[in-house]
């Protein structure tokens, strides 16, 4: 059981990162992670040791987030989220895509595309693992990723010719 808690602990930074990207709000994100951890730990008996703790945690997080959105929509009280502040560290490839633009662009994606692109691009999960977490076939995942990337290119202002935005 200690082993299980260690594995969960190792996933917490990734869960926080993913939740932050999904919600764009530090408090909402950490609440989401806390709910996720509580649920996972209280139901650890349901965890199949054959699977990966990380994928299981992400599945719980994604579902909690969706349920939360559904509730918020029902209550009709969507909270306006502050734009994510620019990180202090400079982008590794400055100028390619303005980070603020990307922050706004990711916000405009439909949830299912956002969930997919963040699992793959941000968390670096294998396609098969991401498809498993989202409970969709691999083909569906690929098409969501394709649509997400097209939308992001449109929203970040270099739809056809990325070289135009390339500086230096």
């Amino acid at each position: 059981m200690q082993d299980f808690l260690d594995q969960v602990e190792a996933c917490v930074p990734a869960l926080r990162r993913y939740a932050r990207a999904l919600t764009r709000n530090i408090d909402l994100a950490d609440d989401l992670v806390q709910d996720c951890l509580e649920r996972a730990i209280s139901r650890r008996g349901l965890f199949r040791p054959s699977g990966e703790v990380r994928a299981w945690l992400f599945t719980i997080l994604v579902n909690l987030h969706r349920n939360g959105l559904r509730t918020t929509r029902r209550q009709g009280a969507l909270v306006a989220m502050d734009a994510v502040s620019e990180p202090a560290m400079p982008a590794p490839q400055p100028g390619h895509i303005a980070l603020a633009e990307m922050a706004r662009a990711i916000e405009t994606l439909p949830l299912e595309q956002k969930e997919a692109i963040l699992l793959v691009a941000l968390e670096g999960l294998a396609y098969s693992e991401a498809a498993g977490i989202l409970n969709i076939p691999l083909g569906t995942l690929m098409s969501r990723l394709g649509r997400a990337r097209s939308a992001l290119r449109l929203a970040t202002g270099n739809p056809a010719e990325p070289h135009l935005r390339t500086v230096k």
Partner: protein
Amino acid sequence: MSQIPSDRLMAFADGQLPEAERADIEAHLAANPDSAAEVAAWQRQSDALRTLFAPAGAEPVPARLRPRRIAAELGRRRTRSFGWAAAAIVLVGLGLGAGWFARPLFDAEPPSQYLIADAINAHTVFVAENRHAVEVPGSDSEHLSSWLSNRLDTNLGMPDLSAEGFTLVGGRLLPGEPSRGGRAAQLMYENAAKQRITVYVTAALPDRAPAYQFASYEGAEAFYWANARITCTVVGTLPEADMKTVSRAVYQQLTEGDVAWVDRG
């Protein structure tokens, strides 16, 4: 120009293509600047996303997100909720128990049951007495009548049962249920065969409703009725027909004709 499915290009951009297939794509990208530009754009998107959100994963984890702390908290919560559940069970048990033992309070037994029981008890106790069967002898029937009338707060005449072969032995005042006036009068009659009957009278019940009831308990017959003024129970061990005759005489004299005698049974 060879066509590469965009899924495979994306897999290449995401570094998820098997080593063996990469060379093909690289060759393709070298020959197709548009594809290469697209792949580069995707990679920049991923870089941007990581740059935006990686810091969130590098922040120190707040205490409330520590799995061990959560596990401990959940354990405490479980213990607490077990405690509440146990308390609830105990309370429900107490409630059931109290309800069970309080049954007599809630059972809607008609007051006549108590009055008849009291009358039979009093009869059983005092007919067995010889020297102290009564408090005031029947020879002083006028005093007896006014005394008991005052105590019961109602006009109580001594029924004359000479026609039935009974003479008044006397009467006494008895304690009764506080809710039913707190007092009862017992009149005792005796016939030539030394058989005794008693007449147990209380003030009217709060509802003052007329009632009429026969009861039989351990060999004693009881004839009970109630009206707006009094309740009366005639108790004796005579044969039923004789009891009826006596009871009718008592009834007719005590109700002063305000209710017609109904012959039942």
